[in-house]
């Protein structure tokens, strides 16, 4: 009897876990299938390629986490790409020709800068009450302009230890350092956040702003803080750009729109209040693997962009069909 109940109580959480994370788990299964396919079509796919994969996805993965935080809170940030460009050029300009000790100070300073950028975005959204999409769209011009002011053309440098943190393997050859960095950063910042009161409030305002307000959540303050965290993750993404390329470029990459795509693919509802950051991170790897596989298959790489678009649309269509079925049934 006690043994049976013990087993039950042990089994039940796993079932709940599977049900709650169904989307992420199926995405993970898809990724494993994709990896198996890669190994089949390209038997030489080995540790070096995996390390390259880890380094190349790190900026987008962090940008996606940044986007996920604010989308869960019912907003959207279209200035992430520009914030990454700004933090990347600032860090690269500061660290050029400097030693490791100064590099640490520069990294801390750039993270502080990210907090400030996010605070300005969030402050404007809360104070002006203009829709998030408009404010962050306009701020994307501002931050991109600031990046060009800092450095008119790509340049600068990265402290050796910073490059060392994201390049190469750790332990065995199959584990890229970048993946560990990603997991550690997310574990340090996101997990405590999601479990804290603030995290719950972010989910609450994203899910139903009025209900959250009536339950005593300070909507403005919570939204502001969500944007601050987005700024912090954008700065981390910018730093990872500097670290992996060794320079800073003032021209924003395609990260803003790709991060929106990855967030939605990862099971975060654009309406807010639903999802986490793990699914979106898996989605980033999936998007990158599709591109890699198409290169291996000798398919025109431009079709990879088409495939990314088709998969984005297809997956979301499938998701909303399931939703429609459920509400009708």
């Amino acid at each position, binding site marked *: 009897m006690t043994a049976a109940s013990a087993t039950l109580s042990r089994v039940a959480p796993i079932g709940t876990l599977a049900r709650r994370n169904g989307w992420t788990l199926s995405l993970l299964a898809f990724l494993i299938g994709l990896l198996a396919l890669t190994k089949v079509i390209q038997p030489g796919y080995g540790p070096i390629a995996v390390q390259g994969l880890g380094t190349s996805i790190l900026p987008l993965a962090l940008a996606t986490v940044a986007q996920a935080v604010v989308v869960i809170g019912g907003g959207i940030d279209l200035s992430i790409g520009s914030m990454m460009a700004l933090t990347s050029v600032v860090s690269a300009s500061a660290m050029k020709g400097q030693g490791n000790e100064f590099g640490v100070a520069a990294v801390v300073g750039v993270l502080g800068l990210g907090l400030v950028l996010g605070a300005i975005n969030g402050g404007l959204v809360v104070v002006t009450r203009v829709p998030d999409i*408009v404010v962050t769209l306009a701020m994307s011009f501002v931050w991109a302009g600031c990046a060009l002011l800092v450095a008119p053309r790509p340049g600068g440098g990265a402290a050796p230890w910073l490059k060392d943190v994201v390049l190469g393997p750790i332990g065995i050859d199959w584990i890229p350092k970048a993946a560990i960095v990603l997991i550690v950063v997310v574990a340090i910042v996101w997990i405590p956040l999601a479990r804290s009161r603030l995290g719950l409030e972010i989910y609450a305002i994203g899910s139903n702003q009025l209900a959250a307000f009536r339950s005593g959540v300070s909507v403005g303050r919570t939204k502001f803080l969500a944007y601050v965290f987005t700024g912090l993750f954008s700065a981390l993404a910018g730093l990872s750009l500097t670290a992996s390329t060794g320079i800073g470029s003032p021209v924003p990459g395609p990260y803003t*729109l790709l991060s929106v795509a990855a967030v939605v693919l990862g099971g975060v509802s654009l309406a807010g209040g639903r999802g986490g950051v793990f699914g979106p991170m898996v989605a980033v790897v999936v998007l990158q693997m599709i591109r890699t596989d198409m290169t291996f298959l000798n398919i025109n790489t431009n079709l990879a962009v088409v495939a990314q678009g088709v998969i984005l649309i297809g997956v979301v269509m499938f998701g909303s069909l399931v939703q429609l079925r459920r509400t009708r049934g």
Partner: protein
Amino acid sequence: MSELASTSPERPGWLTGTAWRSLFRDRPIVPLVGLLLVLVAIIQLVQPGIVGVSWAGVIVRASIPLAILAGCQTLTMLTGGIDLSVGAVASMAGFVTATLVHSPGGVPFAVAVALTAAALAGLISGIGIGVFRVHPLIMTLGMSFVVLGLSNVWQLETIQTGAGTPDSLRTLGSGTVFGIVPNSLVVFIPLMLLILLGLRRTGFGRLLYAIGDNPVAARLSGARAWQVLIVLYVISALLAGIAGLLISGLTNTASVSLADSSLLPSVAASVIGGTSILGGRGGYGGTIVGALILTVLTALLTVLGLPEPTRQILFGSIIIAVAAAYTRVTGET
């Protein structure tokens, strides 16, 4: 007299905050034209003599493609949507036309193919949004990836890439009558009338407002939202295609990313023009003025001799300031 009234502490009724508010809310075009005139006056002050008839012609010519693209955003935003694929669709239309100029069918055939491709992209977006209820932001974003990728593939497939923009499009996009009146008005004025009258006088226009204002009420009153949305996104893509042809003619270039930089300004022009991104409120008149304001603003920042980064920073700040003023005055959250 109005100056006297505004400085005296006891203001007459028509100058109270409420009256101003209703002016902004009901006739947003009045303060917008005021802002436009202020910007023009500043340009004239900074560089006396620059403002003239031919200068106005240049400004109008530069505004027309932006105004058409902003039309896409206005129409879709009225239903609570947005069209992020206009940049990719416009570039694609210009590029496809340029590659097909020397085909047997000539320019008409090239334009027909380009606009058909644009309409097809719009049809797919419309089906996704209307039937499958995909969020417009995601659907059109995905569509922009698809269109961009296919344009790139087409670029590699076509052997003759150096064909360039056909002369007729160049004349249409960048030519002027007597060096003043831009030829592209021939395209723009009918489109403008069509959109303005379509929104005010037709059932379709009213349905757009109804769906954006309250989708549930619209459905309960018998509006078939999915049909409206499909037609809407086809129209939006066609407008984007036409704008792409004009941009290609104006700049005398054709590339797969030609109009990408117009995407965010098109949203900005629509927002400045008083169309709510949440749906149900706005109109095309304000959007046209919004496009003019953005163009004059760019001209002003250029005249001031500001470097490009500073221009971008000011551009963004002004968009936020105008949008914030709107929100404050109309009291909409």
